[in-house]
């Protein structure tokens, strides 16, 4: 069987893989992409996008319930979980087709099947375990992503114990729900089901919710979630889950060693991810794997010449936009484009779409101090922002952290309305290496939520106007 030859074969068509393939095609490379399940990967089929669709339903419901505050009377509101899920799936399907169209338009060869590296730049494409095609590639980019981590003895079964994938196609709203893990995925589902009426308990092993965020932001989020009726248990470990016909009983242990049990209808496990490194034929190469992720250098090169890894399969942060950027950098480096620069991890924003939303970039205040910076911190609450009050959503704040000596914007941390849309302003500032001076001189439009970003910088200089 003669192997079909390509300049580049991308394995996996998630936001890392398909973007890499399109960029490579733009640069004149002959590209194939191998996908075993859905074009678009987890992000748009089972992750970022469908969850945002669900959360939008929750948001509309939230506003409808509060309609009288806006001078409107809505008498009966009924939640139809099946219709909510159907809308979410429809959106995923629409985008899935969109990725197929983009790949076709860019003349990327799409091969549906499972890819296996054979060593020496060769791959097999398998369907149902049978090799149907052999490929030869000058370069291979592995972008197989990651999946939910299972805890031993607490594996998701799709019935009583869910992971994100099961939760996305929920057939009912659980009366009592336990969410294990308070990272972005756990908190978003907790927020969604809590809004729709579930009695939600969140368990976090670390001492605060959203533990990667700035401590002040975590504390504000904690308060906001509690106000919405969520029960948040931090510093708590799940020791076991016992399934019975009428529910699941979780044995938990608090930080001071006290044992308790919680009985719920459903459990969502959101305790991190593991890289999809298995069954790829990595044993036929010099690719190095460390704790389920592929080890790469700053140009995404693995230990095997001509083989690269990007996105969730590689190093953290495990975010779709990071995967896409790595895909572009990796391909441009392969193609010999001038002026390619490695990704700067500190400039990658993180967003959580709970209510209130949380978004951040750069160092937290504590991390900045730990790194030896003398910091200058600015804070501005949305209660001082006209647009937030007009929206009826004035909860939250914008926090900025500057280096006192150089004026470098070290980090920005936001909680409140639409902050996931606002954070890019600070990301641009960080990428351009702005100091406080450029931010102070920037004219923010009135009336917008973004004015709070300006005020936070003013506050860092002791000059906030509206608070």
């Amino acid at each position, binding site marked *: 069987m003669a192997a079909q030859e390509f300049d580049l074969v991308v394995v996996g068509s998630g936001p890392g893989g398909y973007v890499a393939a399109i960029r490579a095609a733009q640069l004149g490379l002959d590209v194939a992409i191998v996908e075993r399940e859905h074009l678009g990967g987890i992000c748009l089929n089972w992750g970022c996008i469908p969850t945002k669709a669900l959360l939008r339903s929750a948001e509309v419901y939230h506003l409808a319930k509060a309609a009288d505050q806006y001078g409107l009377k809505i008498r009966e509101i009924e939640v139809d979980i099946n219709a909510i899920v159907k809308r979410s799936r429809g959106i995923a399907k629409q985008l899935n087709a969109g990725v197929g169209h983009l790949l076709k338009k860019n003349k990327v060869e799409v091969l549906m099947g499972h890819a296996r590296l054979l060593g020496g730049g060769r791959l097999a494409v398998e369907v149902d375990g049978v090799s149907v095609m052999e490929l030869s590639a000058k370069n291979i980019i592995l972008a197989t992503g990651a999946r939910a981590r299972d805890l031993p003895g607490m594996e998701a079964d799709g019935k009583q114990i869910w992971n994100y994938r099961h939760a996305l196609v929920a057939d009912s709203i659980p009366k009592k729900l336990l969410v294990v893990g308070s990272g972005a995925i756990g908190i978003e589902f907790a927020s969604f089901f809590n809004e729709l009426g579930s009695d939600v308990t969140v368990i976090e092993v670390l001492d605060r919710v959203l533990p990667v965020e700035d401590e002040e932001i975590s504390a504000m989020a904690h308060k906001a979630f509690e106000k919405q009726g969520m029960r948040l248990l931090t510093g708590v470990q799940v020791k076991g889950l016992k399934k019975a016909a009428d529910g699941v009983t979780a044995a938990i242990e608090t930080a001071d060693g006290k044992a308790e049990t919680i009985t719920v209808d459903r459990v969502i496990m959101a305790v991190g991810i593991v890289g999809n490194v298995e069954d790829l034929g990595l044993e036929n190469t010099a690719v190095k794997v460390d704790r389920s992720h592929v080890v790469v250098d700053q140009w995404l090169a693995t230990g095997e010449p001509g083989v690269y890894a990007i996105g969730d399969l590689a190093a953290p942060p495990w975010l779709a936009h990071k995967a896409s950027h790595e895909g572009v950098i990796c391909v441009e480096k392969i193609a010999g484009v*001038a002026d390619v620069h490695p990704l700067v991890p500190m400039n990658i924003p993180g967003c959580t779409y709970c209510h209130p939303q949380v978004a951040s970039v750069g160092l937290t205040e504590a991390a900045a101090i730990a790194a030896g910076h003398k910091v200058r911190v600015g804070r501005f609450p949305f209660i001082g922002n006209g647009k937030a009050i007009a929206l009826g959503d004035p909860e939250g704040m914008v926090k900025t952290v500057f280096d006192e000596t*150089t004026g*470098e914007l070290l980090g920005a941390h936001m909680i409140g309305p639409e902050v996931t849309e606002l954070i890019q302003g600070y990301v641009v500032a960080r990428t351009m290496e702005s100091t406080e001076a450029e931010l102070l001189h920037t004219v923010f439009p009135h009336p917008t939520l973004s004015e709070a970003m300006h005020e936070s910088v003013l506050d860092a200089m002791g000059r906030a106007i509206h608070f």
Partner: protein
Amino acid sequence: MPITITMPALSPTMTEGTLAKWLMKEGDPVQSGDLLAEIETDKATMEVESIDEGVLARILVAEGTEGVPVNAPIAILLEEGEDASALEGVVTTPAPVAAAPVAPAPVAAPAPGAITAPAAPVAAAATADGGGRILSSPLARRMAAQSGLDLVALSGSGPRGRIVKADIEAAIAGGGAVAAAAAAPADAAPTPATEASPFEGEFELLPLTTMRKTIARRMSESKREAPHFYLTMDCELDDLLALRKDLNDRADGAYKISVNDLVIKAAAVALMKVPAANAGYSTAGIKFYKTADISVAVASERGLITPVVRNANGKGLEAISKEVRELAQKANDGKLMPEDYQGGSFSISNLGMYGVKQFDAVINTPQACILAVGAGEQRPVVKDGALAIAMVMSVTLSVDHRAVDGAVGAQFLGVFKGLIQDPLTMLL
């Protein structure tokens, strides 16, 4: 396969250069060993030889393009039997010139008012565009000002060669050669006074050559950062001139020793006797050089350059004389290699042949001393209480006070004067 010709590295430290001149044009047949182009670095001009044969199919970087990174493609050769269609693959192959269409590359004179992004081949240079603008981030500018770093001396690692925080941190960590007092004002970097005055007369503007920029940068840096002081002495030359005549009479055309050659020798011997003056200042500490490597200022047609007579203390007058002559010739031809002009320990600048009586030279940092030599002329002198006539030459030593104190400078000058006035003692 068409052959891509890339920007050569003319020295181990060269990262970019100016494509000064194409010696061939598109369509010319090329033999191995043919000279293709002239490349100008900050000090030297070199010719690029072809090692391949074929036809010069396409010139990718126009004459006069500055800041072309080493290894960037500059031209494409077609091998025998290939026609222009073979170019397509090559030109569109995303090489370091990637996105840039390989249409006529930017020429030195842009259209009036055209402020365009520099084309890809020069993209990596921080000072890529003709206006000398330095691409840098606000944070990098502030950090540079705070640590007294001159952005002109740095190269950027950011997009389009932009100087970013990491470059400043690297410069600080590396003890940047340009690091100065911490409190240097933000505007310490020399800003070219380009604003036109309405009262300014008519002039012809000659663009700065790479060499002129280097002279400007190094001289400003020296005057700005090295605290100069000056010591002057008069030396009687009669015995030295007699010795010179005696030596040259025996030469039979084999050599011709100049006064300057004797001055170089005397300075080298004096440095060995007063080694504290054979010094250089660095932030890491004072360097005391083991040999007298004398940088000799040469006024070439292209500008000032200081090729080095190495180990002058260990060389005879004939060897010194021959070497100075060769270096001066190379300087005039723009053929000096970096090793010819880098790394001296002491400088001599002689304007005596122009009739200059005495002058103060700008120190050639990081060296600590430079000797400015005036003309030898008949002057009245007092000898044994009576007026007499002697050949006298005034010399002035400029000294970097960070590295060398007044007494050491005076001691050196005293020993030098003794050697000039009693030249046979140079043999001791």
